[in-house]
């Protein structure tokens, strides 16, 4: 289901002519999609600069600039449109890296025909939701999170997952930095469940201090 009757511009990036043909054809299932297909990351960057597509759908493994590098380049140029990856067997490590770098979602190539349109619509829906929430997030002045947890190592991953959602949703940090904060927090909290003491070490303090806080804001950790 498309979000509105306004057309949605989708940029498809793949070095294979067969894949470009198939993906374009699959996307035509939804008449709201307007599709442009290009052959590499450089063309994609040019298109993103001039046309600002609503979504980028890219192959992960391409010569020259791969999908991960494309995501990083789009972000470094200030483009915030969601990027959906098309992945194949053997690219798992790269997929994880790309998701950490900020890819919105991924679709295995073997399921393109059945899953791509649904995934794009889900990603668009989430993006629109975030866009509506953003004005409220911008006005947020205080956000305090308090968790009273049992000393149970199994609870740490759930807390971290929840914190990652909050960090991204509140735009405290995005992509790689959010993932790094959560990885470090996980280590610190896991240590705390063993030693009984929560120590905010230099690495975590450095990450938290790099976050774009208003003057007077502070992070308070209570153990």
């Amino acid at each position, binding site marked *: 289901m498309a979000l509105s009757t306004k057309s949605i511009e989708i940029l498809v990036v793949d070095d294979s002519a067969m894949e470009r*043909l198939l993906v374009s054809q699959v996307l035509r299932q939804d008449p709201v999609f307007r599709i442009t297909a290009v052959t590499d990351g450089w063309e994609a960057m040019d298109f993103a600069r001039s046309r600002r597509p609503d979504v980028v759908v890219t192959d992960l493994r391409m010569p020259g600039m791969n999908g991960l590098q494309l995501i990083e380049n789009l972000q470094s140029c200030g483009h915030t449109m969601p990027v959906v990856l098309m992945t194949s067997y053997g690219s798992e490590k790269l997929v994880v890296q790309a998701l950490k770098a900020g890819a919105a979602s991924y679709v295995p190539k073997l399921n393109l025909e059945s899953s791509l349109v649904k995934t794009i619509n889900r990603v668009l829906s989430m993006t629109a939701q975030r866009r509506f929430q953003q004005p409220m997030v911008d006005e947020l002045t205080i956000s305090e999170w308090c968790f009273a947890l049992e000393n149970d190592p199994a609870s740490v991953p759930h807390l971290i997952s929840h914190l990652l959602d909050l960090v991204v949703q509140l735009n405290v940090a995005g992509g790689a930095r959010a993932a790094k904060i959560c990885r470090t927090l996980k280590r610190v909290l896991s240590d705390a469940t063993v030693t009984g003491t929560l120590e905010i070490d230099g690495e975590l303090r450095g990450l938290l201090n790099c976050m774009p806080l208003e003057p007077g804001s502070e992070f308070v950790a209570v153990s």
Partner: protein
Amino acid sequence: MAIVLESTNHSCCNLPGALARLGDDQDLLCELARLFVDTLPDRIRDLTSSMEAGCPQAVSDAAHSLKGSVRYFLAEKAYDMAQALELLALSGTKADIESSAEKLLREVQRLEAELVNTYFPK
């Protein structure tokens, strides 16, 4: 022109199944077959030149590319062979890689012949 697709014991692909996956879009499958036949020489050249250059990553990339191109036709044997070479290229011996590449090339050429015979008979 309506094309009747049959999958026999001698087939190296499953065109009726591929057609069903594409929502019975005969034109799309035919166009994919045309692109496969047109681009196969380049893909084979990529693979053989990577082998000659002794570049494992390039061999793996070329096998990956072939794997992607055969999947539309549900050519399972070629797909599995390409996937095997994609991995073997990064860790196997030269002899194993060459043997694997030879088998793959034979299989994709069988597929090419079957697609030409089905869609572009002389």
